[in-house]
């Protein structure tokens, strides 16, 4: 029997705790108890999330035995106060004094509790609150007076004469409860406002930091290495001086590369098709510069994947890395293979080089960090970049689980 009651109590507590934690979910929950919860949830809806979280934390801390122990301790304390009152005013009865002290004490405790967790409404509508308190005091007085009328053996005029005194007493008790409640409410509200302001400042700072890092990223993407530009222009100059028709071809590739990479400053998003073309023009430029003996490359993009959206410049960064850390330091040069494929809904992008491999030329890792950051911004945890030693060279691979869900 006891166990059943305890179990029921525990479920009841759990229900409310869940409700405090997530009122929206309880509102949606089906089941027999849900009507009661739904009403409570509607009431909770008027609380701010900070208030609700505090209520949840409090309820969690004082659930079960601890809560009842607290109530018991309060009852003992209030009874002591009642006993002291009885000693101070011997005219009252023991039971009446202790009962009155407990009633007033618990009214004060629950009132402050309410004010503690629902301070915003209390402070926002304090006149409404005071009026309600006054009305309740009046009603309580009348009720008390009516009880008195029925059970007292005093004459009606005498009882009528006691009315002002009783009214004054009730007003005193009412004030005793209302003033601390209001004080607590105002105090808590001030705390809440400070906290809100702090949170707003934090959010603002975070937003600024993010905007800053995004603009830095944009700058990084737009950055074309001066080495690349100078050396390519040198190659164009040499070809032009030799009167070689390849000068025009190299210039065309450089223009295509510059247009795509500068154009990308304006748009965050690009398509696989555009990205492969960008990498293609970059590799063609590098092939003219390094010579066909030192750089060979293949690009494999299935037509079905060409229109797929993705953040721009990521593949180019990987291709640049392959050139810089793989092909250029290799005595015999090597090959770069760029490919895209879809397997089980996952998009795989691969940049494989047959150069000197990892560790031979340590870079700053800035480029890769940038790529990881941009993938995270665009796909969250759905995109993974891995770098693996191949024999020979390195394979940089990006796997994107929901490539269509790019942000």
């Amino acid at each position: 029997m006891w166990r059943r009651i305890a179990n029921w109590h525990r479920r009841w507590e759990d229900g409310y705790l869940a409700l405090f934690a997530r009122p929206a979910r309880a509102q949606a929950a089906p089941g027999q108890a849900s009507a009661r919860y739904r009403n409570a949830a509607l009431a909770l809806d008027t609380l701010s999330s900070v208030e609700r979280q505090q209520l949840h934390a409090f309820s969690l801390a004082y659930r079960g035995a601890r809560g009842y122990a607290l109530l018991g301790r309060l009852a003992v304390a209030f009874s002591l106060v009642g006993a002291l009152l009885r000693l101070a005013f011997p005219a009252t009865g023991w039971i009446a004094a202790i009962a009155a002290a407990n009633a007033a004490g618990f009214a004060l405790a629950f009132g402050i509790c309410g004010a503690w967790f629902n301070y915003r409404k209390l402070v926002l509508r304090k006149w409404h609150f005071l009026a309600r308190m006054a009305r309740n005091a009046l009603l309580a007085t009348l009720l008390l007076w009516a009880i008195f009328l029925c059970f007292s053996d005093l004459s009606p005029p005498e009882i009528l004469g006691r009315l002002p005194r009783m009214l004054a007493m009730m007003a005193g008790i009412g004030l005793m409860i209302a003033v601390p409640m209001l004080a607590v409410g105002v105090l808590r509200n001030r705390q809440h406002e400070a906290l809100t302001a702090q949170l707003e400042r934090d959010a603002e700072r975070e937003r600024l930091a993010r905007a800053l890092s995004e603009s830095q990223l944009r700058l990084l993407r737009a950055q074309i290495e001066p080495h690349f530009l100078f050396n390519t222009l040198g190659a164009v100059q040499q070809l032009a001086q030799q009167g070689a028709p390849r000068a025009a071809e190299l210039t065309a590739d450089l223009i295509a590369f510059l247009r795509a990479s500068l154009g990308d400053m304006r748009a965050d998003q690009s398509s696989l098709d555009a990205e492969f073309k960008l990498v293609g023009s970059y590799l063609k430029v590098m092939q003219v510069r390094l010579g066909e003996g030192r750089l060979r490359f293949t690009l494999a993009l299935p037509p079905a994947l060409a229109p797929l959206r993705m953040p721009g410049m990521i593949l180019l960064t990987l291709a640049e890395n392959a050139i810089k850390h793989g092909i250029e330091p290799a005595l015999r040069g090597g090959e770069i293979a760029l490919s895209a494929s879809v397997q089980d809904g996952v998009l795989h992008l691969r940049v494989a080089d047959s150069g000197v491999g990892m560790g031979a030329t340590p870079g700053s890792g800035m480029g890769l960090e940038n790529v990881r950051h941009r993938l995270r911004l665009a796909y969250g945890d759905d995109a993974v970049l891995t770098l693996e030693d191949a024999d020979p060279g390195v394979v940089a691979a990006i796997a994107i689980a929901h490539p269509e869900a790019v942000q």
Partner: protein
Amino acid sequence: MTTVLVAEDEPLMRERLLDMLAAAWPEARVVLVAENGNDAWDGFLEHEPEVAFLDIRMPGLSGLEVAGRIGKLAHVVFVTAYDQYAVDAFDAGAVDYLLKPVQAERFEKAVARIRARLDLRPADLGALLGHLKAALPGMRPERTRWLKASVGRQIRVIDVDEVLFFQSDTKYTRVVLPGFEALVRTPLKDLLSGLDPQRFWQIHRGTVVNATAIAAAERIDAERLQVSVRGCEETLTVSRTFAHLFRD
């Protein structure tokens, strides 16, 4: 006639340097055109040119490392892509440098400067190279730790530090260890860039010896020495270029 070495890894840049050299200095004789640092150094030992134009970023040995090995044996002009740190270091040192893409006017000036200095002793690059190596990150060379060599039908993995000496054998390199020797399918000039020059001394174009294995060096004639190696019967010849290693 002044002999010149040109080392540059990009073919068009290489042609450009050669064209400009032919125009600005017709009397210079280009004895070697190298496409990487390893060939540049090997070719330097073979031809001993008086002037070397060295690209800094090249596969194999970097231009800085080649210059470090050349030491005071030739006049060096560096060719480099724009790099503020490098430029500052060059400006502080006495060595000339050309920024890529090299323009004819600037090249002529460099040639004029070199010709004026030809009769002087080449500048010592030691301090400058120290600065440059610190200033150019990512240019620290990767050291070889293990060598794979075929001995008969077996593949042996050799700890580089245990090697007594390396000797060039056309396309292969003979690797001699205490008690056995093996052939590695890499030419010595390409092995060289992976070896710590403090430990492995090149004493001849075709010979690199582990300094810890050297027992003694003795004079053969006015120019040449020979070195005896611990744990090995052979003696190794030290060429004139490297005789300074054994001068006290």
